[in-house]
Structure formats: structure tokens, C-alpha cells
């Protein structure tokens, strides 16, 4: 661990600058409406420029873990909480992803929000998000991470309910808030356990310090961290908020709910690798959560008609892949992170093109009302296809390099569990190909199904250029990331070396072939089911139970409503009743008693000096009497 020097000492600006601009945009009021988007979009670009310089500065170091002490927050004896930043390969990857993809999406949002009254507010929140997200990944202690963690939760809440006058958006915001709350409790308990057993929350002390975590403590911390990660990353069983979060503006879905914030859970687990190295149980739990969510997201994605919801479920399942990877343990962490970065590219591309479609179709997002759009929106179509190829793992596109490695690693785990996980990951790849083909075909191919008052058109350049950039990254980004083992080697100081060589359960070539066949089957299935015959405008009824289940998110919402919401409502109603009748009764009764007494007693304050003097005399006699009584009792 080295101390920051030179350009590295200015890393705090990464957080301070966007926070400042967010403050200015939100406080300045209407007079900033004219220039707010320029400032808002310029900030992440500047940050990206700085991040690149910082990257090369860190690259030049022998020891690439740089600590930047900011200030001592609570310097009491025996209890020391310092605020500081940790610049290391892992956090650098996130900083570059957040500022890079963030810049593109900010620029896109300038055009996307051009006709929105709340554009200034939007950019204020968006910059705030960048600030707290960077704090989350740059923090050098769990406590500082927690500040960022709560900060992004707030940003997410504010941006989901951005159109707060729409009931559905407000509800979605609340849902995200509640689900995140459950997760955050987990994270805060983990931090409390660290305080109790290690006496500190800095990574240096907790993960690499002198205090060796016992297995029990590590398991407890691991499970609580996992709960936190599940809440933030939309993983089973806290996944239901993420699809609803698509009520926010599309740039929000792209940046916060696809590329960056929802991957914070993966970051948390990768960062806490030493904890999970100690506890096998916690590690297994991560794998199980990842596998379940992966399949869950794929199945639900097949049943949605809302394009953004399809993409949201796809995010859920892709993060499932990442959880699976980081849960597999040493040697696979880097692969999970690589998939995370690649996913950031292609999912952002998909969302931005979906936003472009939505923009062109008067904010309509029902795929059954699209069709044939590739003729009128060629650029959007092109970008979507790039993202499509990347996510299904078409040869040489990003997913091909990153996702296939996870499938391979799952199989390499060995034993029955290895086979089960491998097959699940493989099935996920097939299902992904199926639902993404469905989405592509229903949106861009077939005959036009939109109404006459809609005139789809290509969006402005401020939207198309970032889309094209992300589309290109989706195609070639994966190769660039793993070229010569680049990113794996880079990440080694943070998460340990990547296991590349060695005996594979199934040889790489065979596995690649199998994967491609499965994917091809998925694509074929999607095309046969939706590409060859006309798509009905309304949802068909009388379908198989599996389809019904997929449409209803495999009853996760129904389950939550039955098991959590209803009893919760009963409980709160009972409490309200008790509060009204019991507590309030006592309180208002008391208040009424005092009030009545006061009104009656007030008459004793007559205003006559003679009666005041009399009362004083009475008081004096009483005082004398009491003193004597006490003395001679």
C-alpha cells in the first residue's frame, strides 16, 4: 500500500466535483435551466479525462494499491474512523466504467431530455449519482462505502420516481426503496459485526489486517454482505424492484439500473474476497443466489411485452452470471468483473437504443405495437443488433469472450455441483438468445403494428453518437478487455490471479461448440415462434402455464404481496388502531386535561397586586411550614 502523491492526491475531486455541480444545478433554480445540461454533461467527461490520467499514473506504480487519507472523522481513543480513498486496480476499473459509460449516457440524455421540463433537476440528480457511485467504489472502508451505498440508493429512488406525478412511477420508487432497505440492513449489520470483532471497518484492517476472522464471524459477515448485495443488485430474493425501476427515464435505466449501480453488489463481493475465502458457506450462498437469479431473469424475460422490462430481466439474469462468477471463488473473480464491464457496454447500448425507439414512438414501449422499425430507424437498429450479438455471445462479440468463460468456470468447479451450475449457465445462454431474438424480431422486424399518429424517426445526433460508440464497444470491447489477458493481469493485485490454464472439465473448444449450438437453438426458437408469423397486437390468452408464470414474474410479486405486504398491512392497521385508541387516547386525554386545567387555573392570574401579594404570603407560610415540618417531623 503506497500513499497517494502527485495527480493521485486529487482523487477526491472525482467525488467533490460532481457533488458540487449537482448542488449548483439543484439550488440554482430556474435561472440555470438554459445551461444546466451543458454543465451536467461536461462534468463526467472531465472526470473521465482525469480518470484516464489517474489510470496511467497508477499503472506506472510498482505497488498499484494507493491509499489517499482524507481526514480523521472520529478520532477518539480506541475508536478511530478515518475517511479515505483506495485507488487500486479494482476501483480503477469501476471508475473508468462509471465515468466513461456515464459520459456517453449523460450526452445521450441531453437529447433525450431536451423537451422535458425537469431536465435541470434530472442532471442534478444524475451528477449526484456519479458522485456517490464513485464514493462507493473508491472508499477505503466499509463505512465510507456504506455512505456511497445509501447515496446511490437515494439517487436511484429519486430518479425512478422522477415523473413523480405518475402514480406508477412513485410506487416503483417506493418499491425500490423498500427492497433496498432490506438489503441495506444486511450491509449495516455486517459493518456492525466488523466493528465488534475487528474494531475497524477499513479494508486494510478487516480484510488484510492482523485480526484473523474466525469461520463463524466470516460466515455471518459474508451472509450479511450478500443480503446487501442482493438488495442493490436485484438478486433473488430481492429482485422484484429492478423491473419496476424502468419507470424512470431511459438514461437512468441504462446508467444506474444496468451499467453501474446494480453491479455494486458484485463489486462488494469481489472487494470482500478474503471474507468469502474463509467461509465456504457464504461462498456457496453467493453461487446459489447467482444461479437461481440467472434462470429466473431469463424465464421472466421471455414473457414480457414491454421492451425495457425485457432488458431489465436480462440485467437481472446477467448479474446472476456475475454473482455466479464471483461466488466460484479465487481465480474467477476477475472473470466476473470482466463480464460486468462488458455488460456495462452492451446493456447500455441496448437500453439507449430502446430509449431511442421509445422516443420515436411517443413514449410507447409495448413491443406488440412496434414491428418493422429497422426501415425507419436504421442507426438505432444497428446499435441494437450490436448489443444483441454481444449479449447472446455471438462469436467474437463481447459476450462470447466474457460469458462463455463463466460457463467454463462453472463446469470447472467439478463434481455434481459443477455440472449443475454449468448446465444452468448454459441453459441461461440459450434462453437469453431466445428472449433477445424475440425482442429484436418483435421490435424491428415483421410488419408495422404502430398506430397512425406515431411517426417514428431517428433521434438527434447527441443521442445517436453515444449509441454508436456503445454499439461499437459492445462488439469489440470484450476482445479488448481480455486481449492478452489484459484485464485479468491488471486485476490480480486486487482479487488474486486468474485461473486460466489447467485441466478443464470440458475442453474449451468443445464447450465453445456446445455453447454456440445452444445459442443457435435459442435464436432459431425465437425466430420460429415470433418471426415467421404475425405478432398479435394484444397478449394471447389461453397460453401454457409456463408462459403465464413468466408473464407474472414467476409469481414473485404475488408471493411478496401475500407473505409480506398483506400481513404487513394488517400489522400496521392493528398498530394504527392501537395508536389511535390507546396511545393517542392517553396523550390527547392528558393534553385535554392539562388544557382544561390551564384554562381554569388561568383565572387565578387576576392582574391585581393584592392577590399576587396574598399568594406570595401563602407561599411563604407554606415554605416555612414545610421546612419546620421536615425538621421536626
Amino acid at each position, binding site marked *: 500500500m503506497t500513499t497517494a502523491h502527485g495527480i493521485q492526491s486529487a482523487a477526491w475531486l472525482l467525488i467533490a466535483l460532481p457533488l458540487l455541480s449537482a448542488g449548483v444545478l439543484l439550488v440554482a433554480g430556474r435561472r440555470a435551466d438554459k445551461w444546466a445540461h451543458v454543465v451536467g454533461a461536461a462534468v463526467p467527461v472531465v472526470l473521465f479525462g482525469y480518470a484516464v490520467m489517474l489510470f496511467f499514473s497508477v499503472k506506472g506504480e510498482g505497488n498499484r494499491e494507493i491509499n489517499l487519507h482524507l481526514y480523521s472523522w472520529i478520532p477518539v481513543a480506541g475508536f478511530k474512523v478515518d475517511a479515505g480513498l483506495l485507488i487500486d486496480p479494482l476501483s480503477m476499473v469501476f471508475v473508468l466504467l462509471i465515468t466513461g459509460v456515464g459520459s456517453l449516457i449523460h450526452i445521450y440524455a441531453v437529447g433525450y431530455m431536451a423537451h422535458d421540463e425537469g431536465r435541470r433537476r434530472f442532471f442534478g440528480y444524475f451528477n449526484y449519482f456519479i458522485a456517490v457511485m464513485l464514493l462507493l467504489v473508491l472508499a477505503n472502508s466499509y463505512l465510507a462505502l456504506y455512505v456511497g451505498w445509501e447515496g446511490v440508493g437515494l439517487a436511484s429512488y429519486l430518479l425512478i420516481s422522477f415523473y413523480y406525478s405518475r402514480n406508477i412511477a412513485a410506487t416503483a420508487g417506493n418499491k425500490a426503496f423498500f427492497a433496498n432497505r432490506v438489503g441495506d440492513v444486511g450491509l449495516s449489520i455486517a459493518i456492525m459485526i466488523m466493528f465488534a470483532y475487528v474494531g475497524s471497518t477499513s479494508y486494510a484492517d478487516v480484510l488484510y489486517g492482523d485480526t484473523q476472522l474466525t469461520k463463524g464471524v466470516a460466515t455471518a459477515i459474508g451472509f450479511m454482505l450478500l443480503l446487501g448485495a442482493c438488495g442493490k443488485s436485484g438478486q433473488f430474493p430481492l429482485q422484484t424492484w429492478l423491473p419496476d425501476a424502468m419507470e424512470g427515464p431511459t438514461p437512468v435505466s441504462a446508467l444506474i439500473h444496468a451499467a453501474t449501480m446494480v453491479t455494486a453488489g458484485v463489486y462488494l463481493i469481489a472487494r470482500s474476497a478474503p471474507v468469502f475465502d474463509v467461509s465456504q458457506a457464504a461462498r456457496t450462498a453467493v453461487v446459489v443466489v447467482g444461479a437461481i437469479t440467472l434462470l429466473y431473469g431469463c424465464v421472466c424475460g421471455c414473457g414480457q411485452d414491454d421492451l425495457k422490462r425485457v432488458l431489465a430481466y436480462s440485467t437481472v439474469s446477467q448479474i446472476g452470471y456475475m454473482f455466479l462468477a464471483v461466488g466460484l471463488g479465487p481465480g474467477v473473480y476477475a472473470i466476473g468483473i470482466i463480464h460486468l464491464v462488458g455488460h456495462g457496454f452492451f446493456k447500455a447500448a441496448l437500453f439507449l437504443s430502446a430509449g431511442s425507439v421509445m422516443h420515436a414512438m411517443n413514449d410507447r414501449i409495448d413491443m406488440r405495437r412496434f414491428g418493422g422499425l429497422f426501415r425507419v430507424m436504421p442507426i438505432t437498429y444497428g446499435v441494437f443488433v450490436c448489443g444483441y450479438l454481444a449479449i447472446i455471445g455471438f462469436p467474437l462479440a463481447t459476450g462470447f469472450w466474457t460469458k462463455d468463460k463463466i460457463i467454463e468456470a462453472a463446469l470447472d468447479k467439478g463434481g455434481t455441483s459443477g455440472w449443475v451450475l454449468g448446465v444452468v449457465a448454459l441453459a441461461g445462454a440459450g434462453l437469453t438468445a431466445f428472449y433477445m431474438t424475440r425482442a429484436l424480431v418483435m421490435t424491428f422486424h415483421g410488419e408495422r403494428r404502430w398506430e397512425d399518429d406515431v411517426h417514428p424517426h431517428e433521434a438527434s445526433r447527441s443521442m445517436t453518437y453515444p449509441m454508436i460508440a456503445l454499439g461499437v464497444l459492445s462488439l469489440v470491447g470484450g476482445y479488448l478487455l481480455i486481449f492478452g489477458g489484459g484485464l485479468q493481469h491488471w486485476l490480480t493485485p486486487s482479487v488474486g490471479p486468474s485461473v486460466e490454464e489447467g485441466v478443464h472439465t470440458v475442453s474449451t473448444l468443445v464447450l465453445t461448440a456446445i455453447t454456440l449450438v445452444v445459442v443457435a437453438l435459442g435464436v432459431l426458437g425465437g425466430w420460429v415462434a415470433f418471426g415467421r408469423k404475425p405478432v398479435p397486437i394484444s397478449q394471447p390468452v389461453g397460453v401454457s402455464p409456463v408462459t403465464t408464470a413468466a408473464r407474472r414474474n414467476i409469481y414473485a410479486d404475488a408471493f411478496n404481496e401475500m407473505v409480506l405486504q398483506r400481513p404487513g398491512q394488517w400489522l400496521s392497521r392493528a398498530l394504527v388502531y392501537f395508536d389511535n385508541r390507546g396511545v393517542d387516547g392517553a396523550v390527547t386525554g392528558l393534553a385535554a386535561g392539562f388544557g382544561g386545567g390551564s384554562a381554569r387555573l388561568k383565572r387565578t392570574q387576576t392582574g391585581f397586586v393584592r392577590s399576587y401579594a396574598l399568594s406570595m404570603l401563602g407561599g411563604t407560610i407554606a*415554605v416555612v411550614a414545610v421546612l419546620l415540618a421536615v425538621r421536626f417531623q
Partner: protein
Amino acid sequence: MSRLLMAETATIHAPSVSYHALAPILIVLGAAMLGVLAEALVPRAERYTVQLGITVVGLAAALVTVALLHGTSETTVAGALAVDGAGLFIQGSVLVLAIMSVLLIAERSVDVGSAIVASAAVVVGSPTDRRLARTGLIQTEVFPLLLFAVSGMLIFPISNNLLLMFVALEVLSLPLYLMAGLSRRRRLLSQEAALKYFLLGAFASAFFLYGLALLYGYANSVDLPAILKASQASPKSDVLLFVGLALLLVGLLFKAGIAPFHSWTPDVYQGAPTPVTAFMSSCTKIAAFGAILRVLYVGFNATAWNWRPIVWAVAIASMAVGGIFGLTQTDLKRVLAYSSIAHAGFILVGLVALTKDGISSVLFYVLTYGFSTMAAFGVLMLVRDADGEATHLAQWSGLARKSPFVASVMTVLLMSMAGIPLTSGFIAKFSVFRAAFHVAAPLVVIALVFSAVAAFYYLRIVVLMFFAEPPENGPTIAIPGWSTAVALTFGVVVTIVLGLFPQPILDLAAKAATLVG
């Protein structure tokens, strides 16, 4: 005969006087004399400026000397005066708050002239009175009067000799009686208040003096340490001691505005000019508590078991009266008056502890309460209508719409009085209750109940300001001049800062918690 007289006089020695220890008092008295001279010699047009200068400089110089005296612990003038930690802390608090009151009195931009009448002696409602009311003239004697009162307040809490304490009591009271009658608006109410205060004050002083005489009969001395020694040693009947103490207490409790000797408070607070009310509710209260502290801790330490029940009783009575009567008041000045009665009860709770913690918590409480109440009265001066200050509660409804800033400032002050965390009031209540908990847990519980009751009427004002519709033809918010702005800002900032970082002042109060016997 003449030889006898000569022998008598020969035995009297001039006591040694430690002038530096008494410097603060001497400076304030000197400034007051200078003020009287200025009143006689300076032309009327310049008197305001000159008097203000003399007063502020005098008080500030006294404050500096008090600060320089820190750590002093000695008795002087044959043991009559004790300059010690607690005494100096009280003196410092009185001086700081007196400077703030002077700044409030000096306010000339919200009302023509100031809150002080142009000429107090003119018959109310006469043509001259009406003519003078429109001029910017002011009865500048208020400044030397205030200085005399402050000098009394500086002697009062450091007197170890009851006779001297009585003199100090009169020195501080007489100017206050006059000052209460100096209001520019509602002059009849103001003069009535002054007369009431004078009559009842004289009544209370008589009790004090009678108690003093009885104690002399018991201990053959009016020095507090001598009374303590007598009460520890004497086998004789102690009826005189306790009746004397009771009567002494009546005089002191009256000054501190503690029930059942509080009845003057609402009327006088309402009638007096608001800056003078601010002065009385902070400085007088602090000085009175300093004296009570000294009498009970130095003179009657040994008989605590006998007087503790009576302190319990008056504390509860005070909290109850302040809490319950305050609920249905409709005039803000009266609400603050009842609030001061309730706060006096809370301070007595800390007094019961009879430990160092008890002393320091009382010192901290009186200081923080002084700042909050001073600033609150300052805010009252700003909300005005055609008749002067708009103090009726109904006129304050919806104030936040007109001036969110003034409403927020008032809210902070009321929160502090209610004892909501992150304000100084919370820390003060907490330290007082903690100090008393070991010896008087039931009293602390009762105090908690009454602080909840009192919180209700503070919060009622907050709700009214923020959530009620403003009345038609409501009051206007005056823009304060520099002096009020300084005093208000200081009061509010201290209220917030002592809520967030109370440690330095708590440490200071703990260090100052010594009383020399």
C-alpha cells in the same frame, strides 16, 4: 463615655480589599457613574451615541477582566465577597448577556427612536406625550440604569455575606423597576408593570431582610460560612435557622421567578419594553440562581436534608405552573414568561444534586437558556404591526409564508427551549437531569413529564407558524438594524453550536464548579 466610644472605634480595622478581584464590579460601577455624568453634561442629540459607547465598552472591559480572573479562588473584604469559579462563570454570563441586551435596547430602526420611551415622566396620552412619541428621542438614562443593575448582578452571586447580598439585591432591583416602566408603546401597561414589580419586589425584600435578621439571631453572624459552622456545631434550637432560611429563600425565589413567587413574571414580562424583558429573563435569572446556589451550597450545606424537600416542592410547583399556565396563553410574551418559570423549575432540579456536577449543570443551563430566551425576545421585536410588536399568537400564524427565515430562527429557539436534541437546550436539560438523577430520581421523572407538557406549547407555536394560514392584515417583519442583527445572530449561533459541540463550555462549567466558603 467618650473613652468607651474611643475604645470601640479603635477595634475596627479596615478590611483588606483585593481590588483586582473586584475589578469587573468596579469597572461597571465606574461606567455607570460616567453614564450619569454624561446624562448631565452631554447635549441631548449625542447622548444616545455616547451612552451606548460607555455602556458597551464598560461591559466589555468588565468581561475581559472576568476572563483574566479565571482560576481565581479567594475571599476578600473580610470574607464578604467570594471570587471563585462559579461566581466568575455567573459574572461572565451576566456580562455577555447584558451586552446583548444593550444591543437590543440600542435598536433604532424597527421603531421610531427605540423600544424605550422618549420621556418617561410625561403623562400618558397627553399632547406632549403624543408629540414626543413621533420624535426619535429616547430616555437615555436606561443605559446607566442597566449598568447599575448589572453591577448589582455582579455582586449578588459572589456575596458570602447576607447583608451585602441584600444590598446587591436592592442595587440590581431598583433600576429594574424603573426600566420596566420605560416602554415606548402601551405605556400604561408598562407603568402598571413597573409598579407591580416594585410593590411585590419590596414585599419580597422585606421577607429576605427578616430572614437575615433571624439567621443573625441564630448564628450571631451574617456570613454564610459562619452560619454553616453554627448549624454544624450548635446544640441549641434551630427554629430560628429554618424560619430564617425559609424567609431568605422567599426573597431569592422571587427574583428567580419561581412558583409560588412567580405571579409578577407574566405581567412584568408583558408590560416591560421587550429588550428589558430579555435582560430580566436572562441576566436577572442567572444572577438570582448564582445567589441561590451560593446560599444553599455554602451556607446550608450541612442542613441539606432539611431544605431539599422544599426545593423539590418549589421545583415541581414551578414546572407545573410554567407548563400548565403556558398552555392557554395567547400572548407570546406571556408564553415566554411562563416558559421562564418552567425553566426555573428545571434549573432547581440540578440544584438538588448538591454535587460538583450539580453546580456545573446549573451553570451550563442558565447560560444556554439565557442565550435562547434573549434571542427569542429579540425575534419578538421584529414582528410588528401598526401598534408596535404583534405578540398575539393569532398574528404569528402562517409567519413562515412571509418570512421563512424569521420563522426558522424562532423554531430553532423554541426547539432549544423544548429541549430537542441538536440544540443547546437538550444538552442543558440532559446535564441537569443526569446530575440530579442519583439523589432525586422521582423529581427527574416528574421534570421529564413537565418538559413534555412544555414542549407542547413550544411546538404549537412552530405548527402555527408553518402550517396555519396567515391572517389578513397580518403583521410585517421589520428589517433589524445592525445591533439587533448582531445580538440575534449570536444568540442563535450559540444555541445551535452548544447543541452540536457543547464540550468546551461543559468543560468550562465543570472547571468553574467551585464555591469558596
